[in-house]
């Protein structure tokens, strides 16, 4: 309905290859960015920013990471939590050694450690597929979890066994630690997420993204065309783990403030996987939608009974949340295996051809 595409024609491949070729989509993106960068920090309450927006963005980032691997390259992984952990611990060590360095740079650097580890655990993917790969990623998950506990060097030999985020400044603002304001942390997270999403989107729309999808859709044909599975798969593991690692670092530094191994356990791997499935495999928009959905759902489940005057205790909410998410996963896989992103795309298509139904 809102689309007015008549007269939007492309006279060069450059225009045609734009990521948002439709004017209205470009306007929409600027609008979302305006809301995210200006409206929310200005009008959002601390609770909203801290408990909803920041974790939503961080999980969306992690979902994008997993989506690169699972959605775009077709390699299923249950090790996202651990790769996030690698990023978090790496960032912690980095800021220990380089306390003066801008923490944002360190967060971005820490992703490279995750990428390296990810590539190592991605190696078996060259020989094995499907469920078999699930096992190797689980190996990564459990091995890394074990490292986070058993290698005290990683948490600077803290008695608590946890990493605690020190106060760090960037651009003259306190961005980490207990005295950093939610808005500042939010803006930092948002900037990183927007930047990395842009980068990933660039990759996906280019040659590299295409080789990933070739591997996903038909690996044998891809190989016969000349894609080297080694490069394609390892680059997917690297990019995926990098993004997950940065998400992990952000999770600890800009949200939790302190973390133990539990923040990166296999349940988080599942959580991210669910975000990707419900959001939509192979869709960046889907990663945001999925993260929003899974993250907001418990908040809504908590809020709804309160509004209707029912008193439900916290553990019941948690259990209901599990059941609903589990059921939704199944429902989505049955009805719409491509998740919210497909619904989004259908809605968009409907708007484009409105008032026609198809």
């Amino acid at each position, binding site marked *: 309905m809102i689309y007015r595409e008549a007269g939007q024609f492309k006279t060069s*491949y450059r225009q*045609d290859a734009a990521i948002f070729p439709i004017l209205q989509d470009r306007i929409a993106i600027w609008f979302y960015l305006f809301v995210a960068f200006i409206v929310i920090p200005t009008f959002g309450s601390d609770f909203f920013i801290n408990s909803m927006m920041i974790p939503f963005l961080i999980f969306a980032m992690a979902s994008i990471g997993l989506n690169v691997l699972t959605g775009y390259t077709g390699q299923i992984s249950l090790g996202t939590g651990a790769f996030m952990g690698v990023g978090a611990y790496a960032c912690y060590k980095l800021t220990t050694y380089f306390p003066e360095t801008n923490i944002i740079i360190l967060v971005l650097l820490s992703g490279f450690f995750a990428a390296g580890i990810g590539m190592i655990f991605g190696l078996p993917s060259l020989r094995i597929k499907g469920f078999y790969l699930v096992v190797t990623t689980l190996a990564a998950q459990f091995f890394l979890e074990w490292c986070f506990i058993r290698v005290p060097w990683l948490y600077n030999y803290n008695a608590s066994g946890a990493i605690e985020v020190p106060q760090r400044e960037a651009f003259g603002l306190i961005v980490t630690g207990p005295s950093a304001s939610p808005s500042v942390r939010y803006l930092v997270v948002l900037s990183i997420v927007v930047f990395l999403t842009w*980068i990933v989107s660039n990759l996906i729309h280019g*040659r590299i993204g*295409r080789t990933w*999808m*070739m591997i996903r859709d038909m690996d044998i044909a891809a190989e016969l065309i*000349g894609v080297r599975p080694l490069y394609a798969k390892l680059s997917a593991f690297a990019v995926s783990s990098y993004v997950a690692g940065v998400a992990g670092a952000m999770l600890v530094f800009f949200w939790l403030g302190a973390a133990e191994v539990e923040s990166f356990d296999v349940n988080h791997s599942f959580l991210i996987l669910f975000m990707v499935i419900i959001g939509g495999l192979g869709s960046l928009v889907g990663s945001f939608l999925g993260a929003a959905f899974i993250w907001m759902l418990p908040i809504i489940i908590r809020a709804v009974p309160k509004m209707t005057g029912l008193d439900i205790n916290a553990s019941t909410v948690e259990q209901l949340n599990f059941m609903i998410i589990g059921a939704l996963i199944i429902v989505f896989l049955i009805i719409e295996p491509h998740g919210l992103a497909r619904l989004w795309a259908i809605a968009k298509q409907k708007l484009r051809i409105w008032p026609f139904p198809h």
Partner: protein
Amino acid sequence: MNAAAPQPYTTEDGREIGGVLMEMKNITLKFGGVTAIKGISFDIQEGEIRAIIGPNGAGKTSMLNVINGFYHPQEGEIVFRGETRSRMRPYEAAKQGISRTFQNVALFQGMTTLDNIMAGRTLKMHRNFLWQLLRYGPALDEEIEHRRKVEEVIDFLEIEHIRRTPVGQLPYGLQKRVELGRALAAEPSLLLLDEPMAGMNVEEKEDMSRFILDVNEQMGTTIALIEHDMGVVMDLADRVVVLDYGKKIADGPPGEVQSNQDVIDAYLGVPH
């Protein structure tokens, strides 16, 4: 039956067929205890359309798989462009300019026609990861340059109207055409077609025949194809090699092969 010695020749329609592009020497391929190909030799000459025919299970597809390195023969040699090797590797084959289509369409179902054909140009794209990250400058220039080539293929195959359609939604005949497009996008020197007309109606077959001839004629591409439809083979091929139960039973121009008694027996199912 002795294979015709690889001599340059001129086809009926006046194309000059040059020297040998590829030669298979005494190829034997086994799977476990099953021998799929038994000591087959034949050659493919530059610029010709070479057909490989035979009844079901004759080892035709296995032969193509050997040519482009998907299967590795236990015995024999492959000479391609003067280089002798005991086996091809898929990546090497692709790099050397061998591209192919598949018996059961092997397209990337989740991608659009455009992306599928772009995929065919993967080997020709070289911009590094860092440029790809930014999708700017050289990376975008390269993308656009290849898009232009891809559009020529789309134009050639007359599939403009499905440019943005995910191939999974296309009817079978069009999928086959897109697959041919993907192979052509690589600008191959040897194009392998595995039953390009299987499952098509008469009209689609005619279209496909025209495209194959046009490819051969306009781009000078050497083509090796497997086909069931004898009529099509007789129309298209310059030379035909006939396989039966993994053995070569005839090799020569279509007319000659057609009248060969072994070939007739094989097709009629006369027991050995």
